């Protein structure tokens, strides 16, 4: 009776126990799911997201894995990651540059197809896409670095002479030829992967890497003197500082030395 008045009826007790059991079980399942969700954030370096993809953590909260981008890709570049096989979070779209690179369509059909905005509709020009950055990862095998004129990565680049240039230098091995070094300019590179796809070596010497791997980052407080000088229109520390000349006179003059000469 007292128990009932205090609300400690067997029914109430059972209800509370059932709720605790369900909540506890779901909390355990939820922790496992969270762990898996955190793991799934690790995108393999070879897996590139379609143009306009939000940064990976945002992308995984926005992509519903419907595959509409895959369907509207005219070159079958994109595919949906399959569970346990492709590394990228299951069901999300990706491509591997060495297999099928992005052909950089002018109308960006994959972005237009995305219903959720996981591929940012704000991307209007494909040249602004940043799927990754090409890096010449192995100079020791690159034919151009060895002094040959392969040039394939340079010539297939959709932004030739902007994203990849050939930088000429003296070939010290032959002493009479030039080396045309393929050089990526990250600010222009879209990461389409055509260079990696077309590298003639069995394993590409130039690879598209995710930006986080490909690029260094200057410390916030670093300033490039020559840039600052240009911005300011004048040297920041003024012209040569004229320090007082010393050394012609002895630092210590003996008393009475004055007037000796």
């Amino acid at each position, binding site marked *: 009776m007292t128990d009932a008045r205090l609300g400690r009826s067997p029914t109430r007790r059972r209800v509370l126990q059932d709720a605790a059991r369900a909540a506890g079980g779901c909390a355990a399942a939820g922790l496992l799911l969270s762990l898996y969700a955190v793991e799934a954030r690790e995108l393999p370096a070879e897996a590139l997201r379609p143009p306009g993809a939000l940064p990976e953590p945002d992308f995984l909260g926005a992509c519903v894995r419907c595959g509409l981008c895959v369907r509207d890709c005219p070159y079958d570049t994109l595919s949906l990651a399959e569970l346990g*096989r492709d590394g990228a979070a299951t069901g999300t779209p990706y491509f591997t540059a060495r297999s099928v690179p992005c052909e950089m369509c002018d109308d960006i059909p994959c972005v237009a197809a995305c219903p959720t905005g996981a591929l940012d509709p704000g991307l209007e020009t494909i040249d602004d896409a940043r799927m990754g950055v090409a890096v010449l990862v192995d100079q020791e095998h690159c034919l151009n670095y060895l002094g040959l004129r392969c040039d394939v990565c340079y010539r297939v680049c959709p932004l030739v002479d902007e994203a990849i240039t050939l930088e000429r230098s003296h070939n010290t091995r032959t002493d009479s030829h030039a080396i045309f070094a393929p050089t990526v300019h990250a600010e222009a590179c879209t990461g389409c992967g055509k260079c990696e796809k077309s590298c003639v070596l069995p394993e590409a010497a130039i690879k598209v890497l995710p930006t986080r791997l490909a690029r260094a980052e200057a410390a916030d407080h670093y300033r490039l003197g020559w840039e600052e000088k240009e911005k300011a229109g004048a040297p920041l520390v003024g012209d040569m500082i004229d320090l007082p000349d010393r050394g012609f006179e002895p630092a210590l003059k003996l008393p009475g030395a004055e007037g000796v000469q």
Partner: protein
Amino acid sequence: MTANAKTFAVAGAEAIATKGWFGAHKYLILRRLSQAGFLGLFLLGPWFGLWIVKGNLTSSLTLGVLPLTDPLVLLQTFAAGHIPALTAILGAGIVAAIYAAVGGRLYCSWVCPINPVTDLAHWLHMRLGLKKGWQPKRSTRYWVLTMVFVVSLATGTVAWELVNPVSMAHRAVIFGAGFAWMIVLAVFFFDLFVSRHGWCGHLCPVGAFYGLLNEKSVLRVSAANRGACDDCMDCFEICPEAHVITPALRGTGDATPIITHRDCTACGRCIDVCSQDVFRFTHRFADRPVDAVDGAEPFDAKRRAA
């Protein structure tokens, strides 16, 4: 044969005797056709180049104009901190409105690609005469649904889509499986050996979500002719959410014979297996107890008389 000794193999036996095999499997056949049809629509494109529908169940585009998005998945993107583009919001609105109006859990029994899997598991489970096994509360699915949103919020991901057997199965068929079949197989074994009606009836948060949409839906099954019930229990045996039948079938007098419970998937199997034609599809506003109209005695009165 007593009711206790009955096995699944004979649930609906009387119905087959009176209505014939097709009559006693009408809605089962229609449902399989519907499930195959929805899957087929998505497969026409990749298999035959006939692009009526693109995408998959989480989001699709029909005839290039009609966007449809799974509202549960979209809500997860909100929870993950993403404001989706208008197309997806519109698509989710259309899907939610249609299911809420017609029947929320129609998704479960007429569309979901996991339903044939768990149906098969249940058929085998009964054939093998296995015990019910672990039976968590039916309400556990709402806890799971809550968990899905909490994890989406905490991790900033569309959490359930990492493991969802429903979209895994659908995507596997349309885009390629990888090891997704393992998750489907896990659900099959879970329902077969661990827990009768375990996945769809107790745990699946997708079903829980569509159940919430089922609250005011129009399409309903009614035990309209409940006066004719001969207590054979076949409907209880075949129903994946058996608790929904009781109030409608056992109710008397003014108690509505319409199954109003949100857990009812409107699968129509109770209609199939009933040799007395107690059940029929109707709408939620047809709330006149038929037994009062046709003069048949309500079930309880009959039982009392016996």
